[in-house]
């Protein structure tokens, strides 16, 4: 049996220590917010935090979580359900399309802002380049990160700069 700390809760799972954290979280703990995209740390959909640091859980054996705190997307909101700044910014900027990559995007962005509360575009690129979004919402992701950082205001109406529309 392996003892884990997931989103502040103690869990025990009976798994081979070589099992990637991704599958322990999704299957043994039935927490499916963390997603499988590629299995070789190339897409970032599986990003979780180990002691606050972002890792690709598809390529990290659960043995490495020994004595560490695992945080998944399900653990970002407050007890009372209040969304984190990043999550709220993601809604303000209407970021997700299909949404499949967004747990990973949010986890990477959260870690970035924790270490760097006012990131430059280059720093955003560096921190987020490992997270693929097949729906192409990178512009909105960048915007949302800046909104969460207080560097940008959300659009007055819901969504980014209201698109110019001619009648």
């Amino acid at each position: 049996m392996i003892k884990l700390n997931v989103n502040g809760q103690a869990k025990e799972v009976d798994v081979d220590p070589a099992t990637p954290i991704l599958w322990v979280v999704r299957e043994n703990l039935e927490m499916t917010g963390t997603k499988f995209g590629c299995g070789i740390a190339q897409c970032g959909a599986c990003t979780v935090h180990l002691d606050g640091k972002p890792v690709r859980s598809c390529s990290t054996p659960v043995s490495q979580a020994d004595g560490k705190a695992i945080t998944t997307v399900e653990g970002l909101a407050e007890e009372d359900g209040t969304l984190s700044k990043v999550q709220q910014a993601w809604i303000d900027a209407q970021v997700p399309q299909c949404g499949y990559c967004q747990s990973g995007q949010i986890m990477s962005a959260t870690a970035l802002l924790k270490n760097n509360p006012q990131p430059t575009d280059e720093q955003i690129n560096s921190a987020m380049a490992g997270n693929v979004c097949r729906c192409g919402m990178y512009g909105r992701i960048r915007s949302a990160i800046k909104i969460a950082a207080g560097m940008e205001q959300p659009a007055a109406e819901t969504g980014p700069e209201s698109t110019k529309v001619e009648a």
Partner: protein
Amino acid sequence: MRNLSAILAVLPALALAACSSDPAPEPVEQIIVREPGAPPVQQAAAEEPAVSGENDEAAPIAAGKSAFAICSGCHVVDADASSTAGPNLHASVGSPAGAREDFAYSEALKSSGITWTEAELDAYIADPAGKVPGTTMVAGAVQDAEQRKAIITYLTSLSAT
């Protein structure tokens, strides 16, 4: 309905891929290892020690093979297999870094001047991006020293064969 008949003629041309063939046949071969909930089957040891004296090597290599499981997402080890997401590690121990023809190593690794001694491997696997900044090995760091040792033992055993 005259409109419909003309329209129906167009239907086969529609690329609606719902067309499947006859009900799928039964499996050609079905191996039932165990039923769900049944206890695991007794697993044979990965390497049977055939001759005394080789006992000392078999267990750590088996442990290393098990530790290598997470690496196998990107690395193959069969002598004649092509590299995949990462380079084939068959003859890696003792070789210079960036040696394989069939893998697009980063400039950083190619020009690192590293030869994969056990010590170099240990340092690299512990923190690839720290040891060789610019490496394309973005995952797979092994923080546990014992695990790294096991993996290296396993890799070394490959070169020996």
